[in-house]
């Protein structure tokens, strides 16, 4: 009798172990007008700005000020930085004035034009020759800058990343790859 009851119990277990549930679904939805994970306004700016770029997947497009061509929230292991892309007419106020203004924002003393030129990392990108500045105040590590400046025909492109000093060091490679990916839109076609 016990043997039969055990057989019954095992039979029920065997029959019910098979999961026949359908766990795949498909459906269609009209495109969301304001998807939380896309930023149409920023994408439009990107298109209308005349530039294209390739950003790391984790960079999040954000709404910046009207002066910015685009803005991104740039996450790193201990926080997130703010990256802005701006195009200003002519030299955009001049290299010396801009660099010293950023230095002042993080508590660094101003430098002469020659000293600034010596601090710059120079290179060539798709857009032309660029200057990269790493602005870190070791006594005030909560805010630091990485800036990438490219003079264009009649304007200057400024790409600026603001994060903590540790964040700047962590993000520098991604920042450079991003800056070097920037092209004029027409150059793709």
């Amino acid at each position: 009798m016990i043997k039969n009851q055990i057989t019954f119990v095992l039979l029920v277990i065997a029959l019910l172990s098979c999961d026949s549930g359908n766990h795949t679904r498909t459906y269609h939805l009209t495109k969301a007008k304001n998807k939380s994970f896309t930023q149409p306004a920023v994408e439009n700016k990107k298109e209308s700005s005349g530039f294209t770029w390739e950003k790391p997947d984790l960079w999040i497009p954000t709404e910046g000020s009207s002066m910015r061509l685009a803005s991104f929230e740039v996450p790193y292991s201990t926080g997130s930085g703010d990256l802005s892309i701006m195009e200003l007419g002519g030299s955009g106020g001049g290299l010396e004035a801009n660099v010293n203004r950023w230095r002042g924002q993080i508590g660094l003393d101003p430098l002469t034009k020659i000293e600034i030129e010596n601090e710059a990392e120079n290179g060539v990108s798709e857009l032309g020759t660029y200057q990269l500045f790493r602005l870190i105040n070791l006594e005030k590590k909560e805010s630091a800058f990485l800036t990438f400046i490219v003079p264009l025909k009649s304007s200057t492109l400024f790409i600026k990343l603001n994060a903590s000093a540790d964040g700047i060091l962590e993000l520098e490679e991604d920042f450079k790859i991003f800056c070097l990916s920037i092209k004029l839109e027409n150059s793709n076609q």
Partner: protein
Amino acid sequence: MKQIIKIVSSPKIFVYTIIWLMVLVVLGTLAQRDIGLYASQQKYFSANITWLGGIIPVPGGRITMIIMLVNLTFMVLFKQNLWKIKKIGVLIMHIGALLLLIGGGLTAIFSSEGNMVIEEGAQSNRVDDYHDMELTIINTSNESLDKYTVFDQPILGKGNILSHENLNFNIEIISYLRNCEPLKRTAPAGIHYKGMLKNFMLRSLRPEKENSRNRPGITYRITNSGSSSDGIYGLFLGQSVPQTAVINNQNYEFIIRRKRTYLPFAIELLDFKKVMHTGTGIAKSYSSEVNLIENGIPRRVLIEMNEPLRHKGYTFFQSSFIEGPEGEATVLAAVKNYGRSFPYISSIIMSIGLLLHLLKNIPKLLQKNPRVAE
């Protein structure tokens, strides 16, 4: 045949299963302290097989209750001596117990719990599950419509290969993590890593006791795409930017998110009100004035604490609220449970059965007790 019925309807099976259920209740209650309520429910009550200490397989709550259900059904249907007028109380009790188990089964199979977040002035027809996740692949190539292919959590186990006629590639699940965190890579990733995993990796974390605090993650491999998109990808819950891929001229987005259920009606939040205890930041009461919109026709309803909205099998409770710079949003707990009435009905039926059986036996009890008889 008679022999089978005799075996299956044996009262001994009921006795063994109810004792085992008691053991499971004790084990599950004790386990809550270490692994939390949800994990304990899953391990001891919702599973067919429970692994004690991770090595000893024993019948789980679900299989135990199914055996009990089969046993009780056979008892009610085939035990001839139950269908007698003098046993009417016992028969009714058995039927009540059967209904209780059937209600439990309906709840286990069809119930869902989630929440619906609606901002003031906006409407929603979507419930996000509290516990279950889904891997969603959206084909965004069409200008007006997005095609969704959704794989539910039960098939996101390690080693599973997912494919669908909507997708021109396969997905092999490398790992599903109940709780994880993205970590910035310190060394360059191999060339087979794509997307977010080029810069980050997912580190498995010990699951939190409170399941809603876990951040599930998944790593998977795209294969047979016939393009350079083949490779290993990763996703985690709450990832701000979805993973994208262009495969055979089709644009895809990959997201892991809470399982979504779209309802055949919508709820629009007209006004959210909250009353705070004086001088504190603690809510005394809050309510949501909503429009229940079905087939384009709105009906005004007030959802308050302890006064939920019930519609089409769903119950919407006022659960919480969110205050943001741009206004308030209400959080409604949405529960769908076809078996919710069964415990009440079966308890009443069992009480009636017990009462009838007691009344029937009173004269016998009085006769047997000589002192009372005197």
